[in-house]
């Protein structure tokens, strides 16, 4: 039979899947299903969910706007210290998010390196914009790495072909490079969005926690755990359901395309 996996792969594969899925099953089993509808429609839950979706999506847009050009630079431009830049860009992947949040405060906070110059005009900590920033900081490497990998794998001769047809560098990027790496960009954006949606440490450190303004779902889950574990499970399930639904829809779209 085609596609039958050898035992050496099938056993660890199933074990791996169980490892990832069982905790979710645990959540579902312990969920207070009878009171679920009432809990779901609580304004606090809806507020946190709305804020989470808005900030994660905005953060993804920010990551796309900055991360795709950055990935292009890392993949195509030759400059001194490119290896170092590449390593630096991926640092937020390994940095504990709380540290990332502190680092953001040290730069963009009221007394931060940059923040102090703007403290009269506007502030980022404790605002929704701050949430977006914290999420983008943590999530952008996912996008950059994915897009850079796709760019490196893409055949640069298509770009040459476009140049011989009179396309300017910008047109080449927009009409040839970008469509060619679109699958990588979408995959990166999805990862980035999912990471932003689950972001906790950097957000609570940099943007704080205020319902309606900076309290996203993961923050609400964390605080609910303090007093009401059942509520925390409900909130987690909501976050999970939304995430799975969005990823499943996107995946289908892109497999068809």
């Amino acid at each position, binding site marked *: 039979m085609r596609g039958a996996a050898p035992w050496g792969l099938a056993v660890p594969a199933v074990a791996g899947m169980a490892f990832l899925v069982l905790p979710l099953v645990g959540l579902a089993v312990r969920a207070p299903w009878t009171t679920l509808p009432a809990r779901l429609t609580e304004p606090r839950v809806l507020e946190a969910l709305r804020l989470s979706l808005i900030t994660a999506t905005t953060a993804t847009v920010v990551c796309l706007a900055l991360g795709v050009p950055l990935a292009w630079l890392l993949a195509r431009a030759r400059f001194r210290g490119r290896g170092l830049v590449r390593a630096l860009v991926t640092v937020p992947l390994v940095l504990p998010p709380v540290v990332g949040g502190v680092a953001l405060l040290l730069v963009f906070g009221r007394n931060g390196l940059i923040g102090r110059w703007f403290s009269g005009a506007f502030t980022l900590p404790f605002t929704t914009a701050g949430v977006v920033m914290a999420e983008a900081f943590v999530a952008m490497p996912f996008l950059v790495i994915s897009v850079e990998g796709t760019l490196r794998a893409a*055949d640069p001769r298509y770009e*040459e*072909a476009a140049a011989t047809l009179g396309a300017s560098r910008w047109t080449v990027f927009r009409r040839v490079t970008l469509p*060619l790496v*679109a699958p990588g960009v979408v995959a990166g954006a999805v990862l980035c969005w999912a990471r932003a949606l689950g972001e906790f440490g950097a957000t609570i450190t940099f943007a704080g926690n205020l319902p309606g303004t900076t309290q996203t779902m993961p923050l609400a889950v964390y605080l609910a755990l303090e007093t009401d574990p059942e509520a925390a499970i409900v909130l987690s399930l909501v976050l999970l359901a939304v995430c799975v639904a969005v990823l499943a829809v996107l995946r289908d779209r892109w497999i068809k395309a």
Partner: protein
Amino acid sequence: MLSARLVVERERFRLDIVIDAAAGEVVALLGPNGAGKTTALRALAGLVRLSHGEIVLDGEPIHERPAERRSIGMVFQDYLLFPHLSALDNVAFGPRCQGTPKARARVGAREWLERIGLKDHLHARPHELSGGQAQRVALARALAVRPRLLLLDEPLAALDAHTRLEIRAGLRRHLEEFDGAAVLVTHDPLDAMVLADRLVVVENGSIVQEGTPAEVARHPRTDYVARLVGLNLYRGTAAGHQVTIDGLTLSVAEELEGPVFVAFPPSAVALFRGRPDGTPRNLWAARIAGIERHGDQFRVGLDGPISVSADVTAAAVAELDLLPGQEVWVAVKATETHAYPA
């Protein structure tokens, strides 16, 4: 029209050639792999930077300009049709880059596709096209920008033998209609002969021979060209009708003095098991180095004072019981040799 000196220096390679092409002329760069043909073409396109030299097109020096501002069209070996665009949008791509509004660019592209017989495939993606169709779309895409210089890199190499025949004829027709200069890179002599008005043979980064296809075929000046056109080629010294090559003396039809080339086709070589009766003037003993099928004949490679290829029929192989390692007598009629100054 096109007048270029292309010098590209790499660590272990130097390309240095001069190419000229008149309006409407098709020049083929012919040469073995690694000779520098494709580098030359890419230099003309602006995809490789010149180390020295210049490229003048219609009186304007263009070698300082980037590829997108050179008024060229290029057909790549594997076509490089944009996979995310339909055939129509691939062809419309160039005109749109030149500022033609989308609708008008598409009308133009449609005309091109109709002209090359693909009006039923306007909206096909490249992966839905056959090799021959893709080749035609690539040609249309290159021509749609109305280039002054058309560059073709092994345009038929990716096609199977049957399709190649048909596409070659179509390409020839389009090249005849094209009023700019065209430079074609190929390692296939037949493509070069059929498509080009003039051949430029490049080996190791330099031009070794130049001329019309007929001239080059008749008077090969390197082993590479001789092999391409299927001739035995030797360099020797002539004294009247006698040419001395590595100690062997051949009688030739022409009367010449000094360094000359002598060429004759494998079919002009006759083989004998015993020394033949009569006295053909060009006769020597040789050993069979190898035998291989060549079309409906057999090509016999022979070692001896000079290396020679001979074409013999299957019947002759059986009758003479030819086997590698065997000693045979080799005869070449003087009237079938061709000598010319080196």
